């Protein structure tokens, strides 16, 4: 679905923020977090179409929804993550649970179920994971046996156990993945079906406001009309078809939660006076604990937005891109929250200040919807094919584009991004020549380096635009400085770690040392401190102490 008009989207965001300001206070969150309690009344309002109706974003207009596009969903997910990642996860579970219907449902199924979800404010859960089937869904154990009457198929009997299901104990409707005789399928299971029961609410490290529970299915009869798509064997394809944008939602979670932690640290740093001046004026503090994270999160934002716009423009799949977005934003969000605790010192280590809760919460974004390690592999696989298909031109061509951009606009880090992309191309080629991808560690590391190079590329392009998107809270001077800082960091890391990785596997890296162009990468570091100084000032202006 294309995204909605910006005014409608921002009115919805304003409504959400106003609701949160009134009802989801820090004290409320802290109490529920400590009690490991699902805030049922808040989620009821979130799903009540006369109060909020967040779940309607995933539902087309003809079925009573508001038909949000990927960009809209990214924006809402980011704001939800600023509020509380547990509540965000509960909303996300309904988005995710609705997906198999949106992707694979027949017209009759969509009409019946999407209308019910919209009008009856149904909370949905997405039940795929099992004890031995997490990243490896092919290992699915839940079975769906045929039920026949007079030789005709009337329905299925589902038996098995699901694990770590968000909304597991509180949902009204479940989309359950099970192995039918014809292959994996999604089934619609209602909470009161006989033989179906949720298990206890998990005691988790973070997102404790989100209900997570296992599910037991003991010979649960499901009519054949509840088989999504009414054809067996489509389940995994239906699941994979939406990874591009479901992972973008989790990317938005990493972005929102990470920024919330950084913003809190920036505001605090203006009030905390040590040795005669506020922490925000000390380079050793800002350039270590604040600025790098703000920069990396904004690089992630640029990337998420680009992919959201491409999906809204009608492109399908984009699974490698979805993986890059999620991997980067979640890892950066997690590291940002970790350093936010450090930025608060001893206060950050107490429950009285929200950053330690954000840190516990945001860790999940590195795990669910594909762990960071699975994503590193996914990213490597996708781009390795491109490298082979183009005989090494894939990143060299993008680097040429960066050089052209640098000639037009020398302020957006395009030169350093070009160096990063060329270094990456050289590392990939050396891996091909020396057959290094037989080492799993090389493939995972390549996934990381690829992500950095692509973020540097997209950030430079985005920072060169005349007008930034509505979500960018900085002026062009600040955003361009951030793009430069990120591109330098990416170039240095790809060249040095890429070289080190290869040298770790072979006796001699041939001419890779020259090919990654370390001299130029080092020369491109010029101006880094001044840019970080500028970003530190802009951050202070943007997020003033309250």
């Amino acid at each position, binding site marked *: 679905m294309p995204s*909605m*008009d910006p*005014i*409608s989207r*921002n*009115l*919805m965001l*304003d*409504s959400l923020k*106003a*609701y949160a300001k*009134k009802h989801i206070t820090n004290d409320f969150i802290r109490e529920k977090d400590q009690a490991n309690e699902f805030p049922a009344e808040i989620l009821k309002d979130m799903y*009540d*179409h*006369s*109060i*909020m*109706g*967040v779940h*309607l*974003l995933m539902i087309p*207009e003809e079925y009573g929804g*508001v*038909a949000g596009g990927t960009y809209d969903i990214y924006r809402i997910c980011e704001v939800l993550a600023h509020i509380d990642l547990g509540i965000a996860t509960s909303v996300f579970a309904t988005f995710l649970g609705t997906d198999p219907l949106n992707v694979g449902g027949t017209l009759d199924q969509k009409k019946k179920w999407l209308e019910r979800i919209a009008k009856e404010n149904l909370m949905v859960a997405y039940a795929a994971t099992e004890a031995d089937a997490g990243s490896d869904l092919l290992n699915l154990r839940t079975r769906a046996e045929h039920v026949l009457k007079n030789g005709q198929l009337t329905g299925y009997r589902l038996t098995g156990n699901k694990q770590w299901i968000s909304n597991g104990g509180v949902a009204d409707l479940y989309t359950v993945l099970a192995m039918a005789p014809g292959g994996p399928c999604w089934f619609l299971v209602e909470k009161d079906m006989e033989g179906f029961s949720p298990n206890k609410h998990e005691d988790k490290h973070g997102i404790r406001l989100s209900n997570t529970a296992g599910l037991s299915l003991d010979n649960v009869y499901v009519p054949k009309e509840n088989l999504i798509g009414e054809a067996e064997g489509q389940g995994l394809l239906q699941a994979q078809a939406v990874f591009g944008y479901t992972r973008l939602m989790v990317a938005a979670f990493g972005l929102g939660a990470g920024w919330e932690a950084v913003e809190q640290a920036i505001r605090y740093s203006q009030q905390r006076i040590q040795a005669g001046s506020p922490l925000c004026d000390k380079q050793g503090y800002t350039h270590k604990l604040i600025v790098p994270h703000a920069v990396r999160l904004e690089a992630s934002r640029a990337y998420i937005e680009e992919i959201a716009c491409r999906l809204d423009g009608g492109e399908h799949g984009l699974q490698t891109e979805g993986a890059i977005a999620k991997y980067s934003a979640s890892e950066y969000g997690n590291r940002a929250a970790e350093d936010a605790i450090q930025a608060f010192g001893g206060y950050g280590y107490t429950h009285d200040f929200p950053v330690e809760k954000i840190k516990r919460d945001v860790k999940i974004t590195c795990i669910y919807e594909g762990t960071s390690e699975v994503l590193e592999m996914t990213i490597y696989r996708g781009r390795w094919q491109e490298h082979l298909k183009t005989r090494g031109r894939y990143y060299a061509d993008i680097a040429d584009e960066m050089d052209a951009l640098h000639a037009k606009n020398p302020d957006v880090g395009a030169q350093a991004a070009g160096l990063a992309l060329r270094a990456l191309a050289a590392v990939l080629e050396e891996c091909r020549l020396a057959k290094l991808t037989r080492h799993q560690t090389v493939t995972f590391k390549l996934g990381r380096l690829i992500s950095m190079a692509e973020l540097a590329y997209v950030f430079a392009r985005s920072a060169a635009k005349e007008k930034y998107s509505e979500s960018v*809270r*900085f*002026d062009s001077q600040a955003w361009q400085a951030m793009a430069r800082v990120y591109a330098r960091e990416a170039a240095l890391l790809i060249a040095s770690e890429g070289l080190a990785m290869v040298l770790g596997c072979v006796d001699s890296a041939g001419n890779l040392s020259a090919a990654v162009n370390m001299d130029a990468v080092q020369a491109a570091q010029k101006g880094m401190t001044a840019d970080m100084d500028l970003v530190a000032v802009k951050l202070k*202006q*943007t997020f*003033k102490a309250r």
Partner: protein
Amino acid sequence: MHIAVCVKQVPDTTEVKINPETGTLIRTGVPSIINPYDHFALQTAIELKRIHGCRVTVISMGPPQAKSVVQMGLALGADDGVLLSDMAFAGSDTWATSYALARAVKKLGKADIVLAGMQAIDGDTAQTGPGVAQQLGIPQVTFCEKIDIDGKKIIARKLIDGGYEVVEVKAPVLFTMIMPKDYVPRYPSFLETHASLKKPYYVWSASDIGAEAQYLGLKGSPTQVARIYPPPQRGKALMTNGSAQEAVEKILDIMRKEHFIAE
């Protein structure tokens, strides 16, 4: 009855800071919101619509992005919306704005009640609402916190020093609204916002409302802003405690020390 509500898009002043070097407002990244007093005026109109079946028109003046506050009005329940948007309006002060809004209300036909916020939080002038009444030649009741309709009578509760007055008036009339203490601003649901796109919405230019150029924009504005500056910071307050006698002694000590009174 037909109610016209005037609303304004303003920067969220809780987020605005003044650049101490240039004395100008730092607007970067500051969100725009509906003026909170106008928000209450809007909710008052919607409530009257709910009880009495009035028709509600929401009107704003501003750049194209000010459509947001009109759409919010529609989402909350207004029947139709108008945005006065034209370069000719740019730079209008309260007089020129009142003139344009009054022309728009006239174009709507017979508006029985005009509602506006007491003042906007960006300028705090409290002049535009009364200005519209004056331009329309209708009575006005300012600083109201409640409006009721009883047949042909419109009853307003107007805040005054130390209490309130109950004022009965006949249409047409303009009220400016304050925010009562127990007021809870309502924001539209996602569905209401989505549905508001289907409601009648018009963008009117200066010529659409038959406004004369000489009364609009900078040219038509008698107000000239010489300078904006933050008020000088006040000294820190000192609190004393203990008995009245002790507190007085402490205060006298301080006054002596600061040479307000002789030693």
